[in-house]
Each structure stands twice: as structure tokens, then as C-alpha cells.
């Protein structure tokens, strides 16, 4: 009965029609059964379910595992039906049970030949598993041609094919003003200046757009913007995370600068990846010669790059409950960063058990981990502070020694002045000592404290106030001031010593030969069989040496990095190009950029993804070449409006329009700084610290603390607080509010894709936060300064800066009506002051709420004519609206 019911339930199967073993049955067995029955060293109950032919045996109590044609005589089915199996894990759902029964009933046939002979323990990878799309070599797709649009390039042809299959076509091209804003924000993270927009709109030459892209790619802001994307997947932060302390990681910024420089230089990505994974090995650097190597200008870049392998959270330098666990977690996080950023695979679950869905075994995981073991050996661990190298050069050292010598001489001089002055005083003070004891007292005073005899000590104590060996300021303030001034000279001189910079570098110890073992259930305290370094077996079998005799290091990471960048790796090109595509188009071709496995989504345009991956290698791994190719496409240049495509494809998986989207956190802040004229373009260097204000916000600036170490204020006087967001200190536990409000990711350990939210606290930030209000006033002051005599021109300029267009006549009229009302309001608030000393800041004035009972009563002198500062306040209050509009916050 039950069986019959289940069979009916099995999606439209006829009794005689068998489910396909490879595609329907084996995945069920892998999900529920083979973990115990086959993949462990000893199959449970002697039953191995990895191959069909293994199922011809018997269970421990002698009943047949499988009787083809008769589910009731198959323990494989009855035990599962009765809920006895699987012993652990979730029960097999009914539709899977039904499929299993149907397959047995139809004769339990296989659909793919099985290998002969015994199988070693572990995951059995069938031809079918190997045929999963993302494990296939990248192929060169055949490019479709369109008779009506023969000019379409490869990207457009592949996208249009899919669109036409749904009776759709591209949206028309976006207008030039939209295009320049889109491309500029996309490549630089900043809006175009009005002059740039005007010039581009006016440029009728056929290559105007291509020239625009070239100009943007050459801009230093390009590296700042695209570095941020890479820093997300690489898990960059300026603190160590993991422990509650979240201590500062003071030299991380050198890696950030390395990434910016590399991207601006269009460093080929094969090199870029090799440097990050093995910059030490590329330069034959180990612990033995790292100190000298970091001072070598030809090597420092590649060595700085290796900080990539130490970017994840690491609590081993702080107080943690279990240090061994913290070390192993740090290694696991590093592996996660490497695999998700470069291959788009999630391997983390294979740390504890064979992957339940993808053909990745636990042995695979620990073979991959063994690639990194020589440098990340948890038995020979280095804390974050220990794995840095000094950037002090010999010249720096010599200079510091010379300065120290001079300073010491000054100190000696000061000490002598001090003593001499006291000696003079002593000649007065000794008169307090009875004459008979004076000689002995003089000797005792001149004897160092530690060498005095008991009698001498007693004598000094007896006439304590006579000794005059300290406290010069009490006797002779003028003399003391001279000494203090002298000492200050030494301090000032010492401050001129070259500062000792440090860089985080990953190197292997000399003769590294770590024990690489599989950790039972991921537990480092339960090591099992030894493993040798290797790639995940499903992805290929490159030669990775245990210890390369030609290198001073083991050569493991270098071999792995070369394999990843060989052009033959099935995932690297696809994963990277998918992410670049995602940033340009708002959605990946694979919509799960961190999971190219079975649980991830399938590519919407597999041929396109392969085309891009192949093309990337062809261009010599040039990211800028790929930007060019993507951004010059018609697909990219489409308008965001395509009603037919939107109705049929709301997720825009077919790319039949440009996807309108909100700016990310950094771009919102940077754009506000840019349009208000406040942006400090200084590049590189130590991060701008963030501090906590009394009302709980984190803002750029320096925390000023009182004697109790409480923060009393955040000093924002430095122009550094107006630098681009990529230079703000990235604290894992306390990100800047302006960024956190707009979905800055948690770096725990990295971020594969940012999820953007739309919540009321963002609106409150835009309505009430000091940062926005101040930028709005800056914007008002800027346009007033640019158009001092023409108030309408001021408004138009603010619109162009923030909206990318001028207001219509009606919009201008509406704006001016509100502006007049705001002006009247601020004029009442402002005490009359000459323009000359008008401050841009409003003093906080208590205004009672505008309830009917108590209308606000101005307590100031009568309103004066529009002064400069009232104008700034009033126009600023509406400029703030311009910064809060959807048009400003989105790119379309």
C-alpha cells in the first residue's frame, strides 16, 4: 500500500519507467547513505553503497541489500522506509524514497559504467560528477551572428541570443549624461564633475565613449574603487578580529596600497595572484633572508602581497580561550578566503567531513591545506605582531644612531647642568649640617645611593634636606628651566629619527617540513593519516612538490599559484570574470559568486562566462582590457528602462536592461565628499582612525581621552577625515557609521557579495546625521562661491552636481519657493552679524516643537536681509535633500 502510494507520488513516473541511476538515485545515496557506507575507512556493517555492484552483498544480518525488481526484499529500501536508516542526519524525504523504490522495482539498473576492482575509501567521483559544469575546462564558445545586427561583439551576441529566446531584445542605449555617470561611478566610485559631463555630452565624435572609458581607466581613483572590490573577497581589515579585543593590525594598510597600485598599473592578474599566494617563493625568500629582502625595492611589492594569506581574523595575539583552536580557525579562514576569492568554491565544510554535495573529500581539503602548511604551521605559529619585518634600512639605522649619539650628548650636558646647579646650592645647604659632620656628609652625598654604607645612609637621613641632589626646581626655578629646555632639545632631536616602519610578510621557516595530517572531524587534536599537498582532485592533478630542491622554500604555494594561473584551471578565470561582471552589471552570470558547486546557482549564460574566462587569459590577464570589453558592449550601454524585459525577467537574469542599483557604502560617502568639494584626494598610507562619539556614532577622527581613558571627544580637525572611504580604518567590530549604515560587510572572514538593504535608519542618517548636513552646507557654500551673483545659477549647479541634470523650470520654481521659506526660517534663527565673520555653523538653538500650543518664539534680533551664512544654511537644507534623493543614491 505504502509503496503504491509512494510510487504514484513519484513525479509522474510510470511503473515500468526507471529513474536514472546517475542523475536521480546516486545523488540521494550520496546525500544520505555513503558517508557511513563507503566513504569512511570501514563501511558501516560492511555495506558499501558507493557503487551499484557493491549492493549485491548482504547486510550484517544476512538479508540482501538489494533485490532488483523487489523493493520489499531490499534492505536498502525497507530500512530507510521504516526510518531505521539513515541512523544520523535527516530522514530521507518521501519523494526520494519513492524514486528509490521505483528504481529498484524497475530492475536497479545503472546508467553509466562503473570502475572495476575495489575502491579506496573516500568519495567516489563518477564520470557524472566530473561532468558538472564548473569542473569542465573552459571552452571557446561558438559566437552567434545576427543578420540584422552583424556588428554585435561576442558579449552582445551571447546576451542577445538568450534575450531573443524569450522574444526580448536590448533596451535602447542610455543617454550620454546617464552613461558618463554610470561609467564614472562604476570605474572610479565617484560621480563625474559637471565639466566632464558637459564635455562628454557635447562630444559628437564616434569614439567619445571609448575615450571616456580610457580616461577613467587611467584615473588613480580607478585603483581605489576596484581595490575595494578585491579587498572584500580578500577579507581586508585593519584589526585582528576573532577575540573580543579586536586589536589593531597596524601594518595591514601596506597590502591595501599594494592592491591599489597593482590595479592602477594593470598588473597582469596571473602575476597579481602569484605574488599574493607566493610572493616570497617567487623571490627565493624565506625566514633566513626576509629581513634583507624587504629592503630590496625589487622584492618588496611581492612580499607585501603575501599579507593576503594573513588577512583573515586572527585572535592568536590576543586573549582567547583556546589558542590552538584559534590558530586552526585562522588557517581555516585563510583557506576559505583563498578558495572563495580565487575559485568560487566553498570547501570549508570538507574540513570536518566529505562534502555532502560536491565531490570534495576531507582528504582533498587537507591536501589543499598542506599547500599552505609550511608557512601556516599551527605547531610553529607566529602571532600577527611576530610575522612582520622591519623596513628600517642601513641608512635609516645609521642616521638614527647618529641622532641618538647627538641626543645623548645633549642629555649628558643637561645632566651636568643639573648637577652643577645643585652643587652650588649644596654649598649653601651643607651649612645646615653641624661642622663636625660636614666632611663625612659631603663624602656620603657624593657616594651613589647603592654604595653608601649604613652609616652614610643614616647620616644623609639625619640631615635629609641638606643633600640637594634632586628637586632643582624647588631651589632655583630659572636654573631648572634651562635644564628642561636642554632636555627638550634632545627630545626634539630624537623625534627626527627615521620612523621604523614594518610590513606584514608571510615566509616559510628554514627547512620547513610540517606534518600535514587529516584532522578527524576537523579536530586538530585528532590527527589521522598523513597527507601530501595537492589540488582538489576534481579540479586537476598538478604537480605540487612536498619540497622543491631547486628552491630555498618548499615551493608548494608557488606551484599551486602557477597552476591556478596556468589558464588550464577550470574555475579561476570563471570565478574572477563572474565577479567583475557582477560589479559592472549588478548580477553575476553565476548568481552565487562564492559557490560554483552543486548548491550554487547555475550560470545564466555559460557560453558568455567561458568566453570571458578565455578572453581574460588571452589578454594576458589584463583586467583593464576586460573592463573595456564589457563596458564598450551594447549590453552595458543599455538604458535601465525596458518594460518588456522587466515584466518577463524582473531579476534581470537575461541582462535586457541596465540594472538600476543603489550606490555602495563607500561610494555614497565619497560622492557626498566629492560634490561638496570636500574630498581630500590624498592617496595611500596609514588609515584614518575612527572614533566613537558620545551619541554612539563612529566617525573619522582621533579619539581624545581623559585621565580615566574615557573618550571625551573625537577630534575631526585633520583634513584626513575627508579622505576616501577606502582609507578609513576598517575595524571589524566598529566600522564607521556612515559606511555601516549602508551595508558595509562584516569581515568574518570575507565577503563574497554585498547585500544591500533599504531600511529606515538609512533615511534617518540622510535626514539628521551631522556628516550629511555638513556636506550639504559645504555644497551650498561651493555653489554660492561659484555663482556669487546669480541665485538661480547656484541652484542649477547644485542640481547638476547631484542629479546629473538641470532642474526644469517648474522644478526650479518649486525649489525656489521652498528655498524662500527656508531662508525666512534661518534668518529668524540667526543673530544679525556682519558677513565677514559669519560662521558656517549654526549654534544649536532650542526650538520648541511646532505643536499648536507653543509656536516657536524667536528670541533673536529682528530678521536681517539674507546674509551669506543664512543663505548657506537655507540652500544647504535643500542641498541636503539633493543628497538624499534616489537619483543621487542610485546609478542607472
Amino acid at each position, binding site marked *: 500500500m505504502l509503496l503504491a502510494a509512494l510510487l504514484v507520488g513519484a513525479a509522474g513516473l510510470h511503473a515500468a519507467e526507471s529513474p536514472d541511476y546517475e542523475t536521480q538515485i546516486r545523488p540521494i545515496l550520496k546525500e544520505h547513505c555513503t558517508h557511513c557506507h563507503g566513504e569512511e575507512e570501514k563501511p558501516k556493517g560492511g555495506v558499501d553503497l558507493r557503487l551499484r555492484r557493491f549492493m549485491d552483498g548482504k547486510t550484517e544480518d544476512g538479508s540482501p541489500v538489494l533485490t532488483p525488481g523487489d523493493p520489499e526484499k531490499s534492505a536498502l529500501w525497507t530500512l530507510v522506509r521504516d526510518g531505521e536508516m539513515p541512523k544520523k542526519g*535527516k530522514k530521507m524525504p518521501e519523494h526520494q524514497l519513492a524514486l528509490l523504490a521505483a528504481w529498484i522495482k524497475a530492475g536497479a539498473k545503472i546508467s553509466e559504467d562503473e570502475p572495476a576492482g575495489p575502491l579506496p575509501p573516500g568519495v567516489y567521483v563518477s564520470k557524472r560528477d566530473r561532468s558538472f559544469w564548473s569542473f569542465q575546462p573552459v571552452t571557446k564558445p561558438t559566437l552567434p551572428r545576427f543578420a540584422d545586427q552583424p556588428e554585435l561583439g561576442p558579449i552582445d551576441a551571447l546576451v542577445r541570443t538568450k534575450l531573443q529566446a524569450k522574444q526580448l531584445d536590448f533596451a535602447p542605449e542610455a543617454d550620454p549624461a546617464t552613461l558618463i555617470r554610470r561609467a564614472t561611478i562604476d570605474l572610479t566610485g565617484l560621480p563625474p564633475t559637471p565639466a566632464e559631463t558637459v564635455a562628454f555630452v557635447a562630444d559628437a565624435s564616434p569614439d567619445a565613449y571609448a575615450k571616456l572609458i580610457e580616461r577613467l581607466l587611467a584615473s588613480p581613483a580607478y585603483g581605489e574603487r576596484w581595490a575595494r572590490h578585491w579587498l572584500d573577497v580578500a577579507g581586508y581589515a585593519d584589526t585582528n578580529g576573532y577575540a573580543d579585543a579586536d586589536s589593531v593590525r597596524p601594518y595591514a594598510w601596506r597590502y591595501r596600497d599594494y592592491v591599489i597600485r597593482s590595479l592602477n598599473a594593470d598588473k597582469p592578474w596571473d602575476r597579481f595572484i602569484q605574488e599574493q599566494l607566493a610572493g616570497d617563493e617567487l623571490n627565493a625568500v624565506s625566514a633566513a633572508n626576509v629581513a634583507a629582502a624587504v629592503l630590496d625595492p625589487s622584492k618588496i611589492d611581492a612580499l607585501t602581497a603575501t599579507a593576503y594569506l594573513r588577512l583573515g581574523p586572527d585572535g592568536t595575539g590576543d586573549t582567547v580561550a583556546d589558542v590552538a583552536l584559534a590558530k586552526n580557525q585562522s588557517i581555516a579562514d585563510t583557506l576559505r578566503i583563498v578558495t572563495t576569492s580565487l575559485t568560487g568554491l566553498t570547501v570549508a565544510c570538507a574540513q570536518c567531513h566529505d562534502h555532502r554535495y560536491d565531490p570534495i573529500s576531507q582528504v582533498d581539503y587537507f591536501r589543499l591545506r598542506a599547500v599552505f602548511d609550511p608557512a601556516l604551521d599551527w605547531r610553529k605559529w607566529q602571532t600577527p605582531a611576530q610575522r612582520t619585518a622591519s623596513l628600517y634600512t642601513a641608512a635609516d639605522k645609521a642616521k638614527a644612531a647618529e641622532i641618538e649619539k647627538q641626543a645623548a650628548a645633549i642629555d649628558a650636558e643637561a645632566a651636568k647642568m643639573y648637577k652643577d646647579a645643585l652643587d652650588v646650592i649644596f654649598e649653601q645647604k651643607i651649612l645646615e649640617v653641624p661642622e663636625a659632620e660636614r666632611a663625612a656628609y659631603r663624602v656620603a652625598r657624593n657616594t651613589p645611593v647603592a654604595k653608601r654604607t649604613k652609616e652614610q645612609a643614616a647620616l644623609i637621613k639625619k640631615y635629609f634636606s641638606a643633600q640637594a641632589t634632586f628637586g632643582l626646581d624647588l631651589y632655583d626655578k630659572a636654573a631648572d628651566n634651562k635644564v628642561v629646555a636642554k632636555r627638550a632639545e634632545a627630545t626634539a632631536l630624537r623625534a627626527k629619527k627615521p620612523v621604523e616602519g614594518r610590513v606584514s610578510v608571510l615566509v616559510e621557516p628554514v627547512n620547513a617540513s610540517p606534518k600535514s595530517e587529516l584532522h578527524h*572531524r576537523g579536530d586538530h587534536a585528532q590527527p589521522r593519516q598523513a597527507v601530501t599537498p595537492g589540488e582538489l582532485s576534481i579540479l586537476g592533478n598538478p604537480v605540487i612538490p612536498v619540497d622543491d630542491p631547486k628552491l630555498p622554500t618548499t615551493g608548494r604555494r608557488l606551484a599551486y599559484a602557477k597552476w591556478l594561473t596556468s589558464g588550464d584551471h577550470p574555475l579561476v578565470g570563471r570565478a574572477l570574470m563572474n565577479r567583475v561582471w557582477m560589479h559592472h552589471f549588478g548580477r553575476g552570470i553565476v548568481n552565487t559568486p562564492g559557490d560554483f558547486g552543486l548548491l550554487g546557482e547555475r550560470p545564466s549564460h555559460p557560453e558568455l562566462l567561458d568566453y570571458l574566462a578565455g578572453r581574460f587569459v588571452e589578454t594576458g590577464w589584463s583586467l583593464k582590457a576586460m573592463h573595456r570589453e564589457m563596458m564598450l558592449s551594447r549590453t552595458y550601454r543599455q538604458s535601465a528602462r525596458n518594460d518588456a524585459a522587466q*515584466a518577463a525577467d524582473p531579476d534581470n537574469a537575461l541582462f535586457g536592461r541596465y540594472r538600476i542599483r543603489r550606490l555602495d557604502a563607500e561610494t555614497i560617502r565619497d560622492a557626498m565628499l566629492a560634490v561638496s568639494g570636500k574630498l581630500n584626494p590624498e592617496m595611500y598610507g596609514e588609515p584614518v582612525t575612527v572614533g566613537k562619539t558620545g551619541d*554612539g556614532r563612529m566617525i573619522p577622527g582621533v579619539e581624545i581621552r581623559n585621565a580615566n581613558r574615557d573618550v571625551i571627544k573625537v577630534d575631526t580637525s585633520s583634513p584626513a577625515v575627508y579622505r576616501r572611504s577606502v582609507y578609513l580604518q576598517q575595524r571589524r567590530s566598529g566600522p564607521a557609521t556612515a559606511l555601516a549604515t549602508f551595508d558595509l560587510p562584516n569581515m568574518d572572514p570575507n565577503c563574497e557579495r554585498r547585500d544591500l538593504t533599504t531600511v529606515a535608519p538609512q533615511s534617518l542618517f540622510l*535626514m539628521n546625521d551631522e556628516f550629511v548636513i555638513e556636506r550639504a552646507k559645504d555644497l551650498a557654500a561651493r555653489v554660492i562661491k561659484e555663482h556669487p551673483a546669480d541665485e538661480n545659477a547656484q541652484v542649477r549647479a547644485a542640481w547638476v552636481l547631484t542629479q546629473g541634470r538641470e532642474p526644469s523650470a517648474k522644478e526650479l520654481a518649486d525649489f525656489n519657493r521652498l528655498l524662500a521659506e527656508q531662508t525666512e526660517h534661518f534668518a529668524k534663527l540667526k543673530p544679525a552679524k556682519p558677513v565677514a565673520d559669519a560662521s558656517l555653523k549654526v549654534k544649536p538653538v532650542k526650538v520648541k516643537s511646532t505643536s499648536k500650543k507653543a509656536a516657536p518664539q524667536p528670541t533673536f534680533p529682528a530678521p536681517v536681509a539674507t546674509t551669506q551664512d543664512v543663505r548657506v544654511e537655507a540652500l544647504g537644507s535643500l542641498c541636503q535633500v539633493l543628497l538624499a534623493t534616489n537619483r543621487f543614491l542610485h546609478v542607472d
Partner: protein
Amino acid sequence: MSTKLPNGLCSRRHFLEAGGFGLGMLGLATLLRQDGLLAAPVKPLLGNEVFDLLPKQPPRPAKAKAMISLFMMGGPSQMDLFDPKPMLTKWHGQKFPGDIKYDNVAQASAKVLGSFWKFSRHGKCGMELSELLPHLGGVADDICLIRSMKSGVNNHLQGMLAVQTGRITAGNPTMGAWVTYALGSETKDLPAYVVMGHPSGLPTFANQHWSNGWLPSIYQGTFVRATAPHILNLDPPAALQGKPQERQMELLRAMNAEHAANHPGETDLQARIQSYELAGRMQLAAKEAFDISSEPKHVLELYGVGRKECDDYARRCLIARRLVERGVRYVQVLNQGQSWDNHGSIKSALPALCAATDRPSAALVADLKQRGLLDSTIVHWGGEMGRLPVLQNDAGEAKWGRDHNTYGFSQWVAGGGFKGGLTYGETDEWGHHAVKDVVNHYDWHATMLDCFGFDHDKLAFKRNGAALTLTNNQPARVVREILA
């Protein structure tokens, strides 16, 4: 073909189609509809529905109107709190005789760990609870204790996603998003779905705890800070208060309407327009809602406000009640990180965790009851997993802990249609596997939605041609036995 309404206003669709001016009125239209002045939802625009937070009626009458989830991330130890196992005491220190499914963590051991704590019976129902939960004992007759929870999903992230979203992959809607999608909000002054964080900041898995997934973004949870100010920037600067800010909003509405008219059907743009309207009203309402200073002394004492061990959690539970009172549909209160993940030192860690949460959690149930709100409010207390009967970290009693167990764990629920004074389901004699009346996460979701008046397989969202549900086409059972 705009629908003329009795009061002379047009339908929302008309506003949207009217181009330059229309959407500026969306906020107004929303308000009117929330005030019951406008009729049922209008036809979809461009084939895409317009989504809102208007209060909606469930398909059948239901008790539950709101929910407070006291989410206990990390995996509270059921055999030390909710599920007494004398067998463990008897076998303490000996080798566990059966198979144990360990998770991914260090220091596994096969030695049985008997609970350090005694259990006793509470209430008329005689519910057995640990001495670590004395206050919960006081409301035993009002809660339903489920001892047979099971997810089978290892790892904290996947486990949390399973119990919050019904799926183990990221990017799917959470229960709170589903409930607000289904029922909208009873307040226009506060977010429909509020998440109260711990003072330490974002939880380990950040906004995955309150994600709207592929539901429109207005159904996303709004994260608020644990400590004052709970919401940053709630006050306009003095110079902008009142009329000046109203004028700002007037300009903003007009500009956003013009922009949205050029991008019809973009739900994110609509969501932001609505979020400004909400933010404007929150300025007036949220401060009052989050301010507990007006609560009488006996209520503050009931929750434990001012007590060192539980002050923070007490305040948040009390605020949760105030939010539900004011019409918030779904409140989630978070613990710190994965604090219940007691792999080691359970003997010292668990009493502190209980001291921080027991009194406030029980007070929430009692307080809702005395206000007549418990019948319409589901209170949920539970995490994403439980713990094993064997000890972990065999380095002395002080360091003993327990590893993950997803095959049998406990949670309790109260109010909103759940039976009080009921202990439901059993684990085996070791507390390892749920064996009787098993409730997996799909069953829990189906039962929870049932309390709100929805069939779990009918409350669906259409996406790319598929009708998606919280229970994700899994076999889910409404556990009628625990419903009043």
C-alpha cells in the same frame, strides 16, 4: 481606468501612472490606506506587484497577531536546561555506549557528561526544568516546551538559516520577513520587523538573521542597537526641527516621485520612498517606544532592569513588549554572538547565560499575559541546535563542555495560540536524538504560520515563475497537539 473612490481619491496605480507627480503621493496613499481610507491592493504595475506594509487579513481567523523571537544563537544545552536525563548522571564519566555524531570541533570525547544541575517540577502542569531557570518555572503553565526539536543541519550558519529561513543557503527570507509580508504592519510609525542587537554589535552572521532574501526589501528587519541611542540620528538638529524638515521632505517626495516614474516597478526605489515616510514618523514615535523610563517600578523590577546580571537583556525584552504593544509585527532579540555554544567551561558559562536571560524572558511572558497581549503574541525562545550527551574538552571539570547536536534539542513557545503548561516530544534516554513527536524546523514553521492563520504551503511568493514558500515544499506538519 483609474478607480474613483468615494472620497475622490484615485487608486495607487493611478498615482503611479500619473508620472511626474504621482509617486510623490505614494506616501500619502500609503497613509490613507493604512487609515483604511483606500480600498484593497490595486492591480500590479507592469506585471510587478506594488508591495506595502498595510495590515492584511489572514485567510482564516487566527489568534497570533505578533511574534517576539528570543533567538538564542549557539545551541543552548537542553540536558542542562529543559530535558532532564537521569541516564547521563548514572553513566557520568563512562564511555557512551552508542554512536555519537560529533560536529566539526576539537576535543571530542565519548565520555558521558551528567548534568551539573538539578531539575524540579514547576507549575500546576509539573513541567520539569533546571534549577538554572527558576523564573521560567514561574510561568511554566503558560509555556509549551518542545523537547523534540530536530534540524539535522550542522554548523551554526547553516543551522541558523535552516530554522530562520527553511533553507540552508544564504539569501532567503527569514520568518520575520515572511510574517510581515503576510500580514503587513499594525503601525505606521515604527518598522514592521525590528531586530534588537546585543551591545557587542552585529551578530556573527549579521543581516542574514533578518534578511528579506528575495522578498521585496520593505520586509527586511530593521536592526536597532541594544544600548541607547537604540536608533542613531533619531532627532533632527534643532535648526531643522518641524517646518524646515517638512519642507525638505516635500521636496524629496517630489524629486523621488519624478525619478520613480522613470523607473516603474523598481521595488527598491519604492521601498526607499516608504522608508523616508517611516523615518519621518519614527522621529516622533520611536523615541517614546524605546524609552522605558515611563514604565512603573514594579514592571522594571519584574524584568530585572537594574540588576547587574540581566540589565541589558531585561531592557531589550521590555522594549520588545513595548514595540508589540505599539503594533510592530515581529521582534527578534539577539544574544551575543554564539554565546550558547558551550564547547568548554559549561559549568561556569551556562549559569551566567541563564542569569542574564531567565528572569527577563519569563517576565516577558508574565507581563504580556497580565496585559492581555499573550493570546495574540507568540513568544519564542530557542536557538539553532542543542548539545551532546557526552563531554568535550576533557581537561578537568571546569573546562568540560558539550559539542553540537542538531538531532535533538529543545525550545519553548508561549501565547499566540500555543498551549500553556505542555511538555511535548521526547529525546532518547540520552538526550541525543529526538525520538517521539519529532518537530523539525519545517514543522515548526508550518505550525507558527498556522497560528497566524496561514497554510504554510499556500503563503507563497512568486518569483521567476515559481511559487516559493517558507517550508520550501518539504514535508511539513502543523503540530496540532501543541495548539490550544
